[in-house]
């Protein structure tokens, strides 16, 4: 049963969906505070390259090196997010253009590739990677075993993060403040909430999540560094936030949906199925599905339930309210 197509597909969907999930959760937090960050792809690549660098250079037991590497990846992502935060919050630059600039600066033709070359990271396999952990020996259970109980630590941690982000935004005072900052910054300001501080903090946390997402690719999925590491996952993560109507729990569902489409070509190839159809057709499915689902959620029917923060993408200037 556990080698059947559907079980393998679902288990891989979770593996491939995890970086999307981290990226989407980070973007969700930033957007809820009113900052649109289109630099997710760039931040992911920086997390990927720096996490990989750390695991190659840090000596010690595997678990320690991997934990440190994820930390380095998170810091790298946050450092990139800081540039965006400074430009759009302090200097009131256009959020769309600044986010694009971040992806161009940090991305596949920029800093990440420069660092990858300068630090000689290309081509070598990672010294340690995240291996799947059989929780309580339940990994052998039919169907649910491989899907839920035989994944790596990053996957389990992402479930904790979904719950934490959901509770934070929905059930805590701080989360309420964040939503106020994203919906009506002028009112939040009048209540004594420091709008700029909230926006900085959540943009940076968004960078942390994106950095970890990059580490998922270089340390868990591929186990190496290459400039095509993410293949547009950062952009899919941004689209995911829209599909998920700005809710953490729906991000999880969306991430695994797209994870399944990312895993599909590899599984089909591994089994030698449908070889008559060019592999490019399957490889383009995640991108085409992103477009289709975006169209679906932007129709009038779905618009009624939309949860886009009202102040998303606009700078807050106290004098001009």
């Amino acid at each position: 049963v556990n080698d059947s197509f559907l079980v393998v597909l679902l288990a891989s969907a979770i593996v491939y969906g995890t970086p999307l999930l981290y990226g989407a959760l980070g973007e969700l937090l930033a957007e809820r505070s009113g900052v649109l960050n289109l630099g997710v792809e760039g931040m992911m690549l920086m997390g990927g390259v720096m996490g990989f660098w750390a695991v190659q250079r840090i000596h010690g037991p595997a678990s320690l090196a991997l934990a440190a590497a994820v930390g380095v990846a998170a810091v790298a992502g946050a450092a990139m997010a800081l540039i965006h935060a400074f430009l759009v919050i302090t200097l009131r630059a256009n959020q769309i253009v600044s986010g694009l600039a971040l992806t161009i600066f940090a991305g596949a033709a920029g800093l990440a590739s420069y660092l990858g070359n300068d630090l000689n990271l290309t081509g070598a396999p990672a010294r340690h990677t995240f291996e799947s952990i059989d929780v309580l020996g339940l990994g052998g259970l039919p169907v649910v075993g491989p899907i839920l109980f035989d994944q790596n630590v990053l996957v389990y941690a992402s479930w904790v993060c979904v719950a934490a982000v959901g509770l934070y935004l929905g059930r805590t005072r701080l989360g309420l403040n964040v939503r106020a900052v994203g919906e009506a910054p002028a009112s939040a300001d009048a209540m004594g909430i420091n709008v700029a501080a909230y926006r900085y903090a959540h943009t940076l946390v968004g960078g942390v999540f994106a950095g970890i997402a990059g580490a998922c690719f270089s340390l868990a999925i591929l186990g190496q560094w290459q400039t095509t590491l993410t293949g547009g996952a950062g952009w899919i993560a941004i689209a995911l936030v829209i599909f998920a109507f700005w809710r953490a729990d729906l991000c999880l569902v969306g991430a695994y949906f797209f994870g399944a489409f990312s895993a599909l070509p590899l599984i089909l190839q591994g089994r030698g199925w449908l070889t008559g159809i060019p592999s490019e057709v399957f490889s383009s499915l995640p991108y085409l599905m992103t477009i289709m689902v975006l169209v679906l959620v932007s129709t009038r029917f779905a618009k009624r339930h939309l949860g886009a923060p009202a102040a998303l993408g606009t700078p807050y200037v106290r004098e001009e309210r």
Partner: protein
Amino acid sequence: MRIERRLDQPRWLSIAVPVGSIALAFGIMAIILAITGHPPGPTYRRLFDAAFFANGALTSTFVFATPILFTGLAAAAAFRMQLFNIGGEGQFYLGAIAGIGIALWLGDRGVTSTPLFVIAMIVAGALAGAAWASIPGVLRAFFRTNEIITSLMLNYVAGLLLTYLIIDSHSYWRDLKTFEGQAFPLGKVMSSDAEWPTATLGSVIVPFGFALGIGLAVFLWFLYRRTRFGFELQVIGDSQPAARYAGMRLRRKILAVMAISGALAGIGGASFEGDFAHQLEPTGLQSSSYGYTGIVVAALARYNPVAVIPVAFFIGGLQSAGYTLQGADFPSGLVGVMQGIILFCALGGEILIRYRVRFGRRTRQAATPAPEPAP
């Protein structure tokens, strides 16, 4: 220190700020170079030498500047109206596929007239680019789907199409006859009659594509600044509700602008084939990322089509130098990082155009703010 809105924007600022941003970017990059153990002074001297002053440097700069002139115009045309078409990359690929396709087809039919080749390639490239850009355009106009993500997703699809045509199939574009073509996946080479003409100025070879790009830039400037169509675009870019109340047709404008933007990028792809590549080559095309560089160019030019020309030439120079100098003692990827820093500085510098920074205590109440300028 206080920041307040400018009531009027002095003209000199719109030149001084970008130039100042570039200078600041070189300053920041010098610090990064020094930290990573490369002496900034000699590195910069070699960079500029290789870009503009060495023997044959300008010819090579034109090779890099021509594609990004087109993609820069494509981005400028759309971004001006707040339509963020970042699919220039994919539209460029489609233009290249269609351009070389029609050149091969005409070559097989025995056509030898170069002007006919050039015109057919321009038209085919423009149509293919416009069609590809119209997918996000239609989705945006009729379903209000975010064009940023859809146009970007199509870049990856276009990249896969390129790979399919040359590597994974026996398509019309693939060379299956020559010895090299049977050993490696290569694109067919177009007939030498189809190669676009060049002009030689002194020792510098100027490709036809660059001249065409200048012509299109002037046309675009005229269209946006001197016609009713352009005026309406300006209004829509500044305020959509105002445009709707004035009875402007938003949908048509979105479709038209996306098509124009895609056509410009597509002509860029055709020019890339006609001027330089002469055969479809998927990996090189994808690793050059001309489409994304076009966004940098357009943003630095503040979306002014005529300003795109010198900016494309400058960035093309940097890219050409980066390519020539690539090696052990010259960090590869440096030019990409530098472009990013220049762009960040230019974005940060925008604040000086829109706002003035005053030091000291507030002396008078700020008057009503000036209207938001077109970005």
